[in-house]
């Protein structure tokens, strides 16, 4: 085990753990945002630069700071490493820049985008971005296209995280789509009109951090915050069969894999579960899906308070306040 300090909070992690994973072990607001990294997809990460942090001390052996900000998702933690994330103004300023870059050519069509309410870019921009853009130029645009009969590609919204290509590479036996062209003209495409069609292709929708890949069977059906998510499962010979049903009344509007608190699917599901069983009677319902309080989807959801988690959150908050190096700005005592 090695010792790492992130924003003043100490933790111990096994050797070979990335800074981001170490931060996730601590949890809470000191966890760097990740737009391209996906722990269950090999080779992902390092591209979006949203998770850049400062390493104030490389390790106990070599305590020199690292000259540049480093991508926490792919940088290994070292014993005695001291990392600054939200306690470093340079990191926050850079992150603001990354939001601006990602939104530069993004259409901001959230009001008509199916991803709204569960969009990583929306959350990222809300937490780290500026209120206004300084971009006055014309935006780069593409026409939306169908890739297969179940998936819609809105290239305008894509942030080129490459996750969907990794899904195709690692979960399916034949990748037919990829990233073509170069620079800011790069796009996700099949190049020639081809349908993405295989048993696990639907997972591309789940791993997409934005509304670039959406489920055509759910398209414009319902705003996600008006649906009621339920954990459910069925016996499936192809996958774990563990899903979330997004329901209204007795209607199953959409089926997705289960995402953890960082938006990652740990158990991918097959297309049959996703598209062919939109009937409540096909599923064993386990109960309501836990939705984070901060999410817009949590409105009108009532859950039992998890006392263990609450205690952990409070302890972490206290520890963070102790280790915090930024000046107190709203000290009401004065």
């Amino acid at each position, binding site marked *: 085990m090695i010792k790492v300090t992130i924003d003043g909070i100490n933790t111990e992690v096994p050797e070979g753990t990335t800074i981001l994973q170490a931060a996730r072990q601590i949890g809470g607001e000191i966890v760097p945002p990740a737009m391209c990294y996906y722990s269950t997809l090999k080779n992902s990460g*390092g*591209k979006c630069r949203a998770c850049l942090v400062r390493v104030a001390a490389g390790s106990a052996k070599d305590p020199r700071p690292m000259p540049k*900000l480093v991508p926490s998702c*792919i940088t290994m933690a070292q014993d005695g490493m001291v990392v600054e994330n939200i306690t470093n103004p340079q990191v926050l300023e850079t992150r603001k820049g990354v939001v601006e*870059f990602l939104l530069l050519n993004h259409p901001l069509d959230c009001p008509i985008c199916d991803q709204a309410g569960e969009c990583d870019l929306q959350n990222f921009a809300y937490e780290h971005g500026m209120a206004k853009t300084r971009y006055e130029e014309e935006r*780069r645009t593409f026409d939306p296209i169908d890739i297969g009969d179940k998936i819609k590609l809105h290239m305008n919204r894509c942030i*080129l995280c490459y996750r969907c290509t990794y899904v195709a590479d690692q979960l399916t036996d034949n990748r037919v789509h990829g990233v073509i062209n170069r*620079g*800011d003209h790069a796009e996700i495409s099949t190049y020639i009109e081809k349908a993405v069609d295989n048993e696990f292709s639907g997972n591309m929708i789940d791993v997409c951090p934005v509304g670039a890949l959406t489920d055509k069977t759910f398209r414009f059906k319902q705003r996600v915050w008006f649906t009621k998510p339920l954990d459910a499962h069925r016996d499936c010979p192809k996958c774990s069969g563990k899903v979330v049903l997004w329901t209204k009344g007795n209607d199953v509007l959409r089926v997705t894999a289960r995402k953890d608190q960082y938006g990652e699917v740990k158990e991918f599901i097959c297309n049959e579960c996703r598209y062919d069983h939109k009937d409540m009677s096909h599923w064993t319902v386990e109960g309501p899906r836990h939705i984070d309080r901060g999410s817009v989807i949590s409105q009108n959801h009532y859950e039992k308070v998890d006392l263990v988690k609450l205690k952990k959150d409070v302890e972490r908050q206290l520890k963070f306040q102790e280790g915090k190096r930024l000046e107190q700005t709203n000290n009401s005592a004065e």
Partner: protein
Amino acid sequence: MGRKLLLKDINVPGIKSFEVYRKQGGYASVEKALKTMSPDAVVEEVKKSGLRGRGGAGFPTGMKWSFIDKKSEKPRYLICNADESEPGTFKDRFLMEYIPHALIEGMIVSSFALGAKTSYIYMRGEFRWIFPILEKAIEEARAAGFLGKNILGSGYDLELYVHSGAGAYICGEETAQIESLEGKRGNPRNKPPFPAIVGLYGCPTVVNNVESIAAVPHILNMGGDEYAKIGIGKSTGTKLISASGHINKPGVYEIELGLPVEEFLNSDEYCGGVWKGRKLKAVIPGGSSVPILPADLFLKNAKGEARLMSYESLADGGFASGSMLGSGGFIVMDETACIVRNLWTFARFYHHESCGQCSPCREGTGWMEKVLHRIEHGHGHMHDIDLLVDVAKKIEGNTICPLGDAAAWPVASAIRHFREEFEYHIKYPEKVMNPKHFEIEPFRSEKNLVMA
């Protein structure tokens, strides 16, 4: 006359052929290294020589070699970076075209030093006619027993191949080059791991510039200590400079590092002075990526000392008042040049060449190009200038590879030294409507007019 090593025999008739090259003393270093030295001894000589990477970054070559993972059981590779694409730089092409055996000889001794049994020359795709020249040189060397199995009876085997790129500046970055050589898109890899540990096909790999490799035979022939005596301070040896722009004699020149910049610019042996009798306005001394310097700061540093053509002297003053030797792409601008338009062409270049993998570079390079295009065409706003500075700052240092820095530095430096010219474009849009605006009437600082 400065000392010549690389281009010493450039005017010998038939130097392209093996026979003539050999007669001029070529391949002596291969004999010396393979028959009398150990690989480590070769690395040691290169370390002693103080040779710094000639591709632009100036990292000590011997040190780079010593990082290669020797414990690994995997094969090791040497890749020669002949993907010369930095605007203003054309020395490697010149060397490969006219003295191909200099590179082949260098590749053999360098591969020997690193223990590489297969080496590649990654050549820029556009240099299509140089490909057969190098292939022929390789065949000649093989026929003479300098390549293949058991070279010169030493027991050392080496295969050398030329590989062609296909038009991507980014493939000059070492990890992108490795990806490209593996038959993929030229997307740079995140570092660490460094190529010396995990490089081509996951094996330990060194990537060196053409000129660095071509310098190695000379180092072995004269000895590292002797080589280190050429040049000045930590800038040892000779360097090829590609001179272009508004000068009388554009071309490739070999200089001893430490030559005064004024002599290089004005002497008839080199650039022959600014063309058409015009005044010098600015110089980019090391290829498009390095900061631009106005004439006064270029000839003398901020302390008033004459600048020299060396890594240290050109960098004197940091980015505030200095620049870099870079790859030696020496671009000269006379008083009729428009700094904004020149910068726009560079911004367009980086926008075109960004691989699109990481967000600051992908989006930022395009943004800067569009804003500069607006300013140059008379549609700028005053706040655009600070915006450019800020965008450049947000890209610099935050990208996977140094292309982001290379795109940011020219913008930051042009505004630092020529802000008034940007303001002029914004204040007087009607005067910049004609693309040749400063050819009609050179830019004059309004401040100076008031003071005079």
